[in-house]
């Protein structure tokens, strides 16, 4: 077979460039569909609704400007017609090629049984967005994960530090497209850094000292002695 490809062909051909198109490579299906919340957003915020996509199985994506994310998400949560009380996920996408990073909020309304995906596009030279922990407590660790893996800073986050990578990780943010697959340091340097980590940073004492010195029992009061008052 002439057109049969082996795994080594990709190695010989070398790496391929990332997607270079204008828009993010989302296949928009049935663009005529309407979503009540998006229509309400259009009525109230007007220009703030930058784009509305409907993708696989009728998932509605609405793009809003990143500087207005807190205002719009607060309205989506508190308006009685919307009531998006569940934040399913906060994540981010990097499509590479210098395109802006997208912060993704997956919302769901228990009351109206409605789902909505809100996206904010952040240019690579200004990766800052307002935190939504004040709206949904669930955003706390999710935003930490996005910060850890994409380097997006969430303003007014109560505790913004790395959550998955080691706290002293110095190679950058691994889920970005410009991050080398094997990291920026050599294997030897990575191993050396890993072993010089201070475990007390992210493990409880009880977890580390499981095999530690045997504990001394508390002194037993002798019988007949009067207890101190």
């Amino acid at each position: 077979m002439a057109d049969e490809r082996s795994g080594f062909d990709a190695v010989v051909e070398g790496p391929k460039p990332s997607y270079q198109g204008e828009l993010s490579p989302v296949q928009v299906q049935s663009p005529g569909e309407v979503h009540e919340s998006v229509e309400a957003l259009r009525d109230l915020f007007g220009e703030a609704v930058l784009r509305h996509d409907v993708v696989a199985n009728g998932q509605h994506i609405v793009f809003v400007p990143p500087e207005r994310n807190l205002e719009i998400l607060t309205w989506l949560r508190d308006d009685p017609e919307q009531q998006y009380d569940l934040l399913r996920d906060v994540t981010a996408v990097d499509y590479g090629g210098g395109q802006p990073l997208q912060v993704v909020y997956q919302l769901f309304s228990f009351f109206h049984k409605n789902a909505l995906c809100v996206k904010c596009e952040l240019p690579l030279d200004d990766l800052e967005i307002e935190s939504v922990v004040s709206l949904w407590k669930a955003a706390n660790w999710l935003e930490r994960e996005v910060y850890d893996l994409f380097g997006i800073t969430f303003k007014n986050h109560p505790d913004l530090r790395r959550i998955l990578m080691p706290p002293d990780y110095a190679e950058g943010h691994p889920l970005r497209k410009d991050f080398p697959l094997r990291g920026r340091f050599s294997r030897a340097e990575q191993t050396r850094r890993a072993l010089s980590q201070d475990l007390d940073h992210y493990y409880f004492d009880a977890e580390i000292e499981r095999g530690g010195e045997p504990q001394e029992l508390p002194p037993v009061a002798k019988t007949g002695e009067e207890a101190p008052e």
Partner: protein
Amino acid sequence: MGLNDKAPPQIVGASPGLLGEGTPAFFTSKLDFLVNWARRNSLWPNPLGTACCGIEMMAAFASDYDLARFGMERMSFSPRQADVLVCAGRVTYKFAPVLRRIWDQMTQPKWCISMGACASTGGVFDVYSMVQGIDTIIPVDVYIPGCPPRPEALIYALMMVQEKIKQESLDQHAILRAEDPAAVAKPRADEEEIGDLSGPFGNSTEQNRVSGLERTDVISRPGDRLP
């Protein structure tokens, strides 16, 4: 009835001997043999299941395969009482210091089994976060190939450890069991050896097999390198 019906062994007076009348009542052996026999038949494994290999390890310890036949009925979840460390599954760089500390906490004599492709070489996880073989961190006695290996393979590896123990001698103890306090929490393999592990696709710092660091016009952001 039962065992108690047997006549108690004659201790006072004429000894019947170990093998019958007229045979000696003692036998000679080497101390090495006795010590190694005791050690290899009471290996207490410290199960360190971090991934799917851990499932196969649990199967090996369960009744179908029954590792208790080999004197391993007690899983030692504390490294202080463990004899053999079974590292089953992939190890991340974040977990590497924990693995090293567990190994340092185990008392001599101790052995280590690297179970599966990921623990032995990094396996398919040739990425920024994964240790490329735990032998860069701790010394390994037996490697098991497979993804994951079957329980029979783990049993075979434990029997290989037993064979290894058989050949140890007490006068080699100072050499075999020497521990360097300065080596604690340091990479076990030297820099060149660890660097070779990222082959055959070249140096990790210069190549990106996913999107290609050199060929795309990604924006260089020196701020990514946190201090």
